């Protein structure tokens, strides 16, 4: 068994074990589940660090061939795992963050009736995520891709007693599947373009040059449709805010740190393809910019603490897509890396608050909460997300800004800039409303199992930025070099970069000060009016409901009632009844009256005579 196979299968095995225990022994002790859950994610977390270490320092590529999935004719799809630099990099944050959130979840889900079920799904999710990351060919990647969507569906609707949660899960999965539709179509087109040699990533990239440019464009676009769905970009983002119905660890792991970034990972994975289709790259940039702006705008008027964070996630993903579109793949990945830490931290802190205050999520009801440790952690995360130096996101976001600046699309750059201002605004709004208030609310501090992972993540949020220390400060961009992705040249003069950073930081601080004036120790958040375009999320959900969901229901009804039953079935039934009626009419003639029979005979005779006479008229 190779390292990767163990890494992949450990969570699966633990998921299955938890599952079996849950089914066979409904009254099993909770620590049993805890043990298996942490074993699964722990083993893979450690192995991921090992893989990351060897990949980074020894430039080693881990490969593990499991079995042949499908072999038709001379074309076969292998279940092979491959941890190249990109894969190892993904593992490096996915696995440890998963492990930390597992630890956190043991505290969060403590005494929950469905403790076992939760961890079964959770470990299953990690399995699929690893499959997605490690897959050496797109079909297996797609399996992981769908699998994470599926577990996400199960976890969003985890508290299924409230059917609204289930509907949120349905929505997530259906919207994701629209993306998958694009993804799979792209894969199929790609598959058919490849002349021979298997459907692995390396072979695809080898054959890129021979492919039709037009079909490449189509493939690139369809792949991006898949990414849109998974990474909640316009227009397929509607599921993400609703997905917050799941337990908070789920939001932290799946809807912030890992799954939603799969779209970014996938686009980066197909970087050689996107380098050949600049027009699609531009579309990606614009979609990312618009999503970032829209989400940030909506976030400024949300009250649910988790929804604010959800929109913030979407907005940050928008940033990553902007970078991807600009060709700065490793920059996007680096932002994803730091984002995983600080966004997970934010969600975990939010979860701690929610647990401490008995599942209240509205920031208007949570004003003036008294949780000093949580506050510290949340403050670090917030400062990170608004990109205050020297927190990690400062480096990653400014790298993105720099790339956009160089790339030359002023509109995108301006949108990115406005978005980062708005980010500062809504984050500080949330922080000030939660912690800076005249009223005070006391509560129990969270258990250690929840605090410990948060601390670790806080440390990572602060220092992760130094891993890719920009050259302008004398760093050497370790991660970018390690990843070795085909970035399109991003050369920004150091003076300009410094100026950009300065301007950015200055405006961010200005915005934070404004937010402080507006929200800290005031009643603004309560008195603020609650209507208008932004507060109603631009009516997008209503639009979707109006123009997509409702028409489908109407069409369905129309098909079933009018086409199937009225038109076709009636036609068939009436053709049968027609015979019946015809029989009745004919039977009327056969009424037993012999005179009439004679009459019919007469008719026949006369007709025969006339016919014969007519046809023989020439002979006569």
């Amino acid at each position, binding site marked *: 068994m190779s390292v990767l196979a163990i890494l992949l299968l450990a969570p699966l095995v633990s998921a299955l074990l938890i599952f079996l225990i849950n089914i066979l022994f409904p009254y099993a002790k909770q620590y049993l589940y805890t043990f298996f859950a942490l074993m699964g994610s722990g083993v893979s977390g450690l192995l991921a660090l090992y893989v990351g270490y060897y990949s980074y320092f020894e430039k080693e590529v881990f490969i593990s061939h499991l079995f042949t999935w499908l072999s038709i004719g001379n074309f076969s799809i292998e279940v092979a795992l491959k941890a190249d630099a990109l894969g190892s990099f993904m593992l490096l944050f996915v696995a440890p963050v998963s492990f930390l959130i597992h630890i956190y979840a043991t505290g969060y889900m403590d005494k929950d009736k469905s403790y076992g079920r939760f961890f079964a799904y959770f470990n299953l999710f990690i399995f699929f995520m690893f499959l997605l990351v490690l897959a050496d060919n797109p079909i297996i990647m797609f399996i992981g891709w769908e699998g994470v969507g599926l577990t996400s569906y199960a976890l969003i609707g985890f508290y299924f007693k409230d059917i609204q949660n289930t509907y949120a899960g349905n929505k997530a999965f259906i919207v994701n599947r629209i993306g998958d539709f694009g993804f799979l179509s792209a894969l199929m087109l790609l598959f058919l373009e490849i002349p021979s040699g298997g459907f692995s990533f390396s072979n695809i990239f080898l054959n890129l040059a021979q492919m039709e440019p037009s079909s490449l464009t189509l493939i690139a676009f369809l792949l991006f449709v898949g990414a849109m769905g998974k990474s909640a970009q316009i227009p397929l983002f509607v599921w993400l805010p609703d997905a917050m119905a799941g337990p908070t660890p789920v939001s932290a792991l799946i809807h912030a740190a890992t799954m939603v970034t799969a779209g970014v990972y996938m686009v980066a994975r197909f970087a050689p393809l996107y380098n050949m289709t600049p027009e699609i790259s531009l579309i990606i940039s614009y979609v990312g910019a618009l999503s970032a702006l829209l989400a940030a705008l909506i976030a400024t008027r949300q009250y649910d603490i988790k929804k604010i964070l959800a929109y913030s996630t979407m907005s940050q993903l928008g940033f990553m897509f902007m970078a991807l579109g600009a060709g700065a793949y490793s920059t996007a990945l680096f932002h994803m890396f730091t984002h995983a830490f600080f966004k997970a931290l934010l969600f975990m802190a939010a979860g701690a608050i929610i647990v401490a205050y008995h599942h209240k999520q509205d920031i208007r009801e949570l004003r003036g909460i008294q949780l000093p440790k949580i506050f510290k952690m949340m403050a670090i995360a917030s400062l990170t997300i608004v990109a205050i130096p020297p927190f990690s996101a400062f480096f990653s976001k400014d790298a993105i800004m720099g790339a956009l600046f160089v790339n030359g699309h002023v509109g995108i750059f301006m949108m990115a800039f406005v978005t980062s201002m708005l980010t500062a605004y809504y984050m500080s709004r949330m922080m000030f409303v939660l912690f800076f208030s005249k009223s005070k609310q006391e509560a129990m501090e969270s258990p250690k199992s929840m605090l410990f992972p948060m601390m670790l993540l806080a440390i990572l949020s602060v220092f992760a930025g130094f891993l890719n220390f920009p050259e302008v400060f004398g760093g050497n961009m370790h991660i970018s070099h390690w990843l070795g992705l085909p970035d399109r040249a991003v050369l920004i003069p150091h003076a300009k970069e410094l100026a950009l950073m300065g301007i950015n930081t200055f405006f961010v601080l200005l915005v934070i000060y404004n937010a402080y004036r507006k929200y800290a120790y005031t009643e603004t958040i309560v008195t603020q009016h609650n209507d208008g375009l932004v507060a109603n999320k631009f009516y997008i959900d209503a639009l979707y409901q109006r123009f997509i969901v409702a028409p489908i229901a109407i069409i369905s009804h129309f098909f079933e009632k009018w086409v199937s039953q009225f038109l076709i079935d009636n036609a068939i039934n009436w053709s049968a009844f027609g015979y019946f009626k015809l029989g009745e009419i004919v039977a009327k003639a056969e009424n037993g009256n012999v005179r009439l029979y004679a009459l019919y005979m*007469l008719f026949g005779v006369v007709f025969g005579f006339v016919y014969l006479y007519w046809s023989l008229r020439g002979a006569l």
Partner: protein
Amino acid sequence: MLKAYMILSILLFSIGIVGLISRRNIIVIYMSIELLLNAVNLSLIAISADLAESSAQVMSLIIIAIAASEAALFMSLFVVLFRNRASLDANLFNILGGKK
């Protein structure tokens, strides 16, 4: 002359058919049938006379014999039917149509 006889025979035959179909009185129906037979007989005899051949006359004789036996049956039927229904209406005798 033969043609005149034949035409007369045709006319009588047609009148017989009209009576057979349009009347509901079974006695009249019976007599219409007899008229048909007579019309045929007439044409047979006319042909026989024209050909100077007596076979047709024998045929007519046999037809008359058949008519006689038919008459016997019809008469007994009249008696039976009238006894059961107290009517001569042909429309009443429609058990051939099955149960209604």
